[in-house]
């Protein structure tokens, strides 16, 4: 991209006062009469297109339903003992089981993936695939996934099983006791589910999904709680500081953005956004505030986190140390990058950096 100004600053849509008046008038009319905007010139072709689309959907559904073939994955059980176990599914999803965990594949077809976290905890990195549904079940909780990264854990509690869902990226929907709760990036949701009377056998047992509490039981089921780390008094919440930083950065206020991200790191060092805030802060100091030395600490912190920005943070660390002539640290960062991302997007540039040091 062009250095300095963003391309967007050269692509504007100047509006005259008359344009604004006309636009506001139309918006105001639509707000006051929120009727559907039919009657446009494309109504007839749109209806024709809709009919055709419906026909195509009917044909597609008929074809897809003709021969349901059980996947070879169905019923598979993934167990981890003392070590973490990683599983890559054909749709690009990745499951990392923590030690002493078990995940059962209830269904693993091209149209639907349904997994059961039977015990322990597992991290899921699920890309969005059009037409494929992805659900994770844990205790009596059903988690609907669109495309995201999150962790599900099941642990014993006094009154049953505690199911915890932590979302690192994107969003999921957790369904429990008939209630659906959206859980977004940086949020953790948990609930205690009553133990079923008989524990279902892992692999051979088919439905029902998800397991509800046995009929007639008195169930202690506290309301699910979304923890968003918003204090009632004191400094602004991590969410507010993160938003403030983003808004400042988008409006070109690098110093303001850096200040907001620094506040976030100071007041909420363990928040899920801290890693990304640290990376953004390092990037701002490096690219816009001319503080290469100051950038290094934040980039190192981002590189120590586990976010998707880690690769970029490491590559920037290499570049920063190289620019400052610190060949030892440059070589260390270079080794870290190439060990973690041997074919990463920055691998070429990283290999060329601080060559005198090797």
């Amino acid at each position: 991209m062009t250095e300095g100004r963003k391309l967007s600053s050269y692509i504007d849509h100047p509006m005259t006062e008359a344009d604004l008046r006309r636009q506001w008038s139309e918006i105001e009319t639509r707000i006051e009469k929120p009727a559907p905007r039919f009657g446009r010139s494309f109504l007839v072709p749109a209806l024709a297109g809709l009919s055709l689309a419906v026909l195509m959907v009917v044909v597609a559904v008929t074809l897809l339903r003709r021969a349901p073939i059980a996947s070879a994955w169905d019923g598979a059980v993934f167990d981890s003992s003392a070590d973490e176990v990683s599983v890559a599914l054909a749709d690009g999803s990745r499951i990392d089981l923590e030690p002493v965990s078990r995940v059962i594949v209830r269904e693993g077809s091209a149209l639907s993936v349904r997994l059961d976290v039977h015990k322990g905890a597992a991290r899921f990195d699920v890309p969005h695939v059009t037409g494929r549904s992805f659900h994770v079940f844990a205790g009596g909780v059903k988690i609907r996934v669109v495309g995201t990264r999150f962790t599900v854990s099941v642990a014993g509690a006094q009154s049953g099983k505690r199911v915890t869902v932590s979302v690192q990226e994107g969003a999921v929907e957790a369904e429990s006791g008939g209630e659906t709760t959206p859980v977004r990036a940086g949020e953790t949701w948990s609930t205690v589910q009553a133990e079923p009377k008989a524990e279902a056998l892992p692999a051979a047992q088919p439905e029902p999904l998800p397991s509800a509490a046995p009929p007639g039981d008195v169930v202690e089921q506290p309301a699910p709680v979304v923890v968003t780390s918003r204090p009632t008094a004191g400094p602004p919440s991590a969410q507010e500081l993160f938003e403030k930083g983003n808004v400042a950065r988008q409006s070109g206020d690098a110093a303001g953005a850096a200040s907001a991200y620094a506040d976030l790191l100071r007041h909420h060092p363990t928040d899920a956004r801290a890693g990304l805030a640290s990376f953004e802060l390092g990037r701002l100091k490096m690219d816009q505030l001319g503080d290469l030395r100051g950038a290094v600490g934040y980039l190192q912190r981002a590189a120590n986190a586990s976010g998707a920005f880690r690769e970029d943070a490491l590559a920037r660390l290499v570049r920063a140390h190289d620019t400052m002539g610190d060949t030892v640290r440059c070589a260390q960062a270079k080794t870290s990058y190439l060990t973690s991302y041997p074919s990463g997007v920055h691998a070429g540039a990283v290999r060329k950096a601080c060559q005198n040091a090797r």
Partner: protein
Amino acid sequence: MKLRAVASSGPGPTDPELVAAAIAGERWAPEAIFRRYSRLVNGLSFRLMGSRADADDLAQDVFVQAFQSLHRLENRQSLSSWLCSITVRTAHKRIRRLRLMTRLGLRRSEAVNFDAVVSSTAPPEVQVEVRGIYAILHELPAEDRMALVLRRVEGMAIAEIAAHLERSVATVKRRLKSAEAHLARRLGERHD
């Protein structure tokens, strides 16, 4: 309602105050929000859609949606970011719909008119870059197109694009890679 002059900057009401007033039914407040953010929304709409007519329709849809769901805005301080998100998501839907209509033969696929897009004051290298991007936008799948414009034109971070598009970072990276590859291929063809 007759249009009133509303300050778009300076010591006017803050965003949270404007949102609170709009939710409370103060009739001046939505117009003040529109005045304050019309440039932001219209500019982003124009850069995402590439035509004035589509951008105008999109901006109207964005403000109508925003005013109808203003009560759901949890962090009133982040009004501008929220409006950007609505703009991106609505543009994404609109581009997908336009592509469908094109596939069904109900609309002609049109390359973006470059001269109408870039400012005449842009330096030559910027003009070349913008021309390259906007010349291929209509050839890209909707999600690739959104990712490319948000990254290359708006200069957004990948995590930010992922949040706006409600996709994972990995997905956005894949979409960007695909769009960049297409862009590089087409630029290569042009230079051959």
